[in-house]
């Protein structure tokens, strides 16, 4: 129980309209892993991610984060598992970059002096400090996504969950976000990325979980899973398709 940072035992989730989101999912996630959660639209990726952060609770089954039952320890779970949403625009709460990053710590009633110190440190780490007084709405797509990451990082999570982190980003924006994610993983964070475009991150991943119809269909290393991607509606990376193996997206 203590070796894995997340343990999921047979969870099921059905929405209010009767749609089945997750069916009997059991999986364990170890500290420091880089996991891609792949599958076509409607396969249950987002629903699964929201369970990790306690935004959705399972109808049956149980999720343990660092050995604590998520449904009974929501605040602790949300401090341990940070979630970066697909649309950064709708995730941003503060009216300046600084306030946006400080939001989570203010919710935790951290002292103001400590908030200022931590926020400054995170903004410097992510190279956003020069934008601290800017309105988030004036930032580029990549900067907004980095700001969303900063807002999570400041709460010191051990696991960071990304829902389609590269959607609507241009090439420089994608590079910015991808580099940040790789650095986070190298600094010891556990990364879980839900995407239907695996090419960008597959080389960095230690594991791929394939989802379909709310179920986990395959779970393994990228080398084992890559050939099966297209049977689940996910595009196989070009390099692998042309027999060149898995090539890193970042040069």
């Amino acid at each position: 129980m203590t070796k894995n940072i997340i343990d999921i035992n047979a969870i099921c989730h059905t929405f209010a309209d009767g749609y089945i989101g997750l069916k009997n999912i059991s999986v364990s996630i170890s500290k420091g892993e880089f996991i891609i959660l792949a599958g076509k639209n409607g396969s249950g990726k987002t629903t699964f991610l929201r369970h990790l952060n306690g935004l959705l609770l399972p109808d049956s089954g149980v999720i343990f984060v660092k050995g604590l039952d998520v449904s009974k320890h929501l605040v602790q779970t949300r401090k341990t598992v940070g979630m970066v949403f697909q649309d950064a625009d709708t995730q941003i709460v503060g009216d300046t970059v600084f306030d946006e990053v400080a939001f989570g710590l203010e919710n935790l009633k951290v002292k103001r002096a400590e908030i200022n110190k931590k926020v400054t440190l995170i903004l410097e780490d992510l190279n956003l400090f020069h934008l601290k007084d800017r309105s988030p709405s004036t930032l580029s797509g990549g900067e907004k996504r980095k700001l969303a990451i900063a807002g999570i990082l400041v709460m010191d999570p051990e696991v960071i969950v990304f829902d389609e982190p590269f959607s609507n980003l241009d090439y420089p924006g994608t590079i910015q976000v991808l580099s940040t994610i790789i650095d986070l993983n190298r600094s010891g964070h556990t990364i879980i990325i839900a995407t239907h475009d695996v090419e960008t991150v597959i080389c960095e991943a230690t594991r791929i979980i394939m989802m379909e119809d709310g179920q986990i269909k395959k779970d393994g290393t990228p080398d084992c899973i890559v050939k099966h991607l297209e049977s689940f509606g996910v595009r196989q990376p070009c390099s692998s398709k042309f027999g060149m193996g898995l090539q890193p997206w970042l040069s």
Partner: protein
Amino acid sequence: MLHLLDVRCKFLMMCLVSMSMLSAQVFACFFYFLVLLFFFKKTGLNIFATLNSIKYFILFLFFIFAARALALKGDSLFSFYGLSVTKQGLNDGFLVAFRFFLVMLTGLLFSSTTKPSSVKSAVQWFLKPVPFVPEKRVAVMISLSLSFMPVILKQAKEVSEAQKARCGDLQKNPIKRIIRLVLPLLKKTFLSADYLVLAMESRCYSDDRTDPEFTPSGKEFFFFAGSVVLSLSLVCL
């Protein structure tokens, strides 16, 4: 220098001066206008650009002036179609419009020298002693409105452009055009609000939050005393 003042002091100064404008006469109004011009110059704000940004408000003031000039009884200067413009009406209309104009400029000076987040903090601070008002929740709502406005405007532009791309602008009925714009926009706004709630929850949102921080510059007393003297002068002049 106004940028560095504590927002609570600026808030009180603005309220005090605006209230004293209610009884200011023409000479006092001109005097205050000069004071405002001085501060606009000092803060580096372009008065002409500011006037341009409130051109529709100035048009509204013109209507107030015209309505007063026509409605107030007194010595008739000239008349047409049964309506007479009176001397008292012109004076009164000018004074009322001028007062509104000065209050507007005061507000603009305040908003352009204050960060929106500071306004939110000040509102929270002023509401704290008011019973039955959840001041922290009000502050978060102000903050959300400020940060959501650009998102809603962006979505409105996207919906409008998507409709234009399909010749939606050929529809001449303004009511139908508004309905076609408003319904998808409302749907998008509610969806965005749903996502925002989730994003806030995922970051442990709670009403019991860290209080805002104020950084006084040390010149607040001097400025506040100055605004009291100015307000008294405006009333007495």
